[in-house]
Structure formats: C-alpha cells, structure tokens
C-alpha cells in the first residue's frame, strides 16, 4: 500500500493571453472542472478560458500537458 499522499494544491493557474487560441481543450480534460469558457477576448480575438477557483485543482497537470499552445502553467503550492 502506498503511503498516504500529501494533499496537493495549486497556488495559481496562469493562462497566457498571448498564446492561447481559445480551443477550450482545458475545459474538456480537467477532471475537477477548474476551467470554464468565458466571453473575455484576448488581444488576438480568441475567447479565453478562465480558471476561477484554483483551490479545486488537484495538480494532475492534464491541462498543462494537453494544451496545444503551451499556454497553461500550473504553479504548485510548496512543491
């Protein structure tokens, strides 16, 4: 049996406005539904997703790994 894992938490989830193309794959893949689509437009005109509550995040990095434009960075709390 594995030792009881330390509960992981995200300090911040950064979505880069410059590179995000608004495909909303992060909304689809996140198992905790941290992301949601929004109507806020980036400077290049894409509808940006938003991560309103990073407290729900379990730091699985699925969004980071799936993001086709490397626009998401999940910053872990005391890694």
């Amino acid at each position, binding site marked *: 049996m594995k030792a009881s894992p330390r509960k992981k938490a995200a300090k911040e989830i950064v979505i*880069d406005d*410059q*590179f995000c*193309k*608004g*495909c*909303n*794959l992060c*909304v*689809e*893949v996140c198992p905790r539904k941290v992301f949601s689509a929004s109507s806020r437009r980036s400077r290049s005109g*894409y509808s940006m997703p938003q991560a309103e509550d990073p407290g729900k995040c379990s730091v699985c990095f*699925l969004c*980071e*790994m*799936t*993001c*086709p*434009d*490397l*626009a*998401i*960075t999940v910053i872990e709390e005391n890694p």
Partner: protein
Amino acid sequence: MHPLADKYIRKRTLPLIFCPGCGDGTVLNVFLRAVDDLGIFKDLALVGGIGCSGWLPTYLQSDVLHVLHGRAIPFACGLKLTDPRRKVVVFTGDGDCVGIGGNHFIHAARRNIDLTVIMINNGIYGMTGGQVAPTTPLQGRTQTSPYGNLEPPFDVCELARSAGATYVARWTAAHPVQLLKTIKEGMEHPGFTFIEVMAQCPTQAGRYIEGTSNAGELLNLLKKRSVAREKAKETPPEEMTGKFVVGKLHHLTGKKEFSQAIYESFPPEKSR
C-alpha cells in the same frame, strides 16, 4: 508561456501555426517534457516532413531538417549513419509517412535503424485542404471522396510491426501521460521505434469526417474509440470496427541495429 517552452522553443516563431485545438500541439508539449526528463536536448537531431506535423520540430532550438514530402525517414537515416550518437527523431504525418513515403517507412523499419518516428495520424491530408489519405476511415467524407471513402485504411502499427520495427506503440492526443511514458521509453530503445499518435483535426477531419469542429468533442471521440491492448484481446472483432487498439503493441530486444552493424563492419580507423 510555460517554462519549458521558454527553455526550448524559438521564441520568434511563436505562436504555433496550428489551428485552435489541433492535436499536434499536444504532441509537441509532451515531447518537450520527455526530452526535458531524459536530459538529451543537446544530442537531438530532428527531422520533419511536409504537412502540419512536419512543422513541429522547427519550433525547437535544436538541429532541425525540414525536408521533402514523404522523405523525412531517408534524411533521418543519413543523419543517424553519419553520427550514431545522435538521437534522431522524425515527426511525420499519416500522409507523409504511409501515403507519400510509405516505401521509405517500411524499409527503415526492415533495417531496424535507431530512429524514433512519431507519426501523428489525423486521418486526412489537413494542410493541403482535406484530401483522402491512406488512413481515412471507411465512408469518411473528404474533399476528394465526397460520396464516402471506399478504401479500407491502413493499420500503420501492424504495418510497422510486420516490416520489422522493434518498438511499436499507439496512443491518442487524449492520453498525454501515457504518451509521455511511451516517448521516453521509445527514445531509449535502441532500434526502430514507431509511435503513432491519433490526433484530432478540427478544421478538416473534424468538419468533414466527424461532422463537428469542436476540439473537445473530437478528443472525447478519440478516447471513446481507443481500446486498451489487453481488453482488445477479449473483444470480438465485429465490435472493433471503427475502433483502434492503444498501448505498447510490440517490443523486441536483441535484434541488430543498423548503424551499429555498419560501424562494426567498417570501423572508422580501417577505412581511413
């Protein structure tokens, strides 16, 4: 920007040319992680063919060849033979790898030369406007098969295995964690490594074959169609139509690697 992108990507080429929601970006993302974990960025030599996926290596700050349509593997063989210490990785698409360059592909697999071929399969010639590819599913509507595709598609992993590749795996863009593990294992494997990544193409394949251009929906479709290798053994063949097997499909160790065989037969000191 993600710190890994900051470390390895040519910044003046950004943003990536891919359409929003393209699976190619996921493969680039996962590949960067694999290279970072293995710490082999300095030894990399990347080759890209023509097509959307052929653009992937050009974003990295390493040695890159962007070559003729279908001829990525022959150029990579040359690179490997001039210096076997190089870690040569080929990024190629389904049309590039088995459509135009099918012959090069099977012969490189036959030689068992130490390359890592990452084939991104979206089932269509995306960049040129959505023509039918050798991997387009049956009855798929494309620009050049408007009444549905009548040609059965290639099972490229099966082709690679029977041609003599020693490491064959297939994952989808919806399995980034497993893909990362496979790329790392494949790059360490001494021999011809073939990794097929089923990817979504919202602009061409999604719109014409699947009937949706929503990247998230297409990703879920990929996940739904993939059957794990162990489970596929128990599934009757009629239930496997339209689905594909994912996982490590073939791993053979002990077969002689080609560049090693060449350098053993013709040692550099003697030929001088």
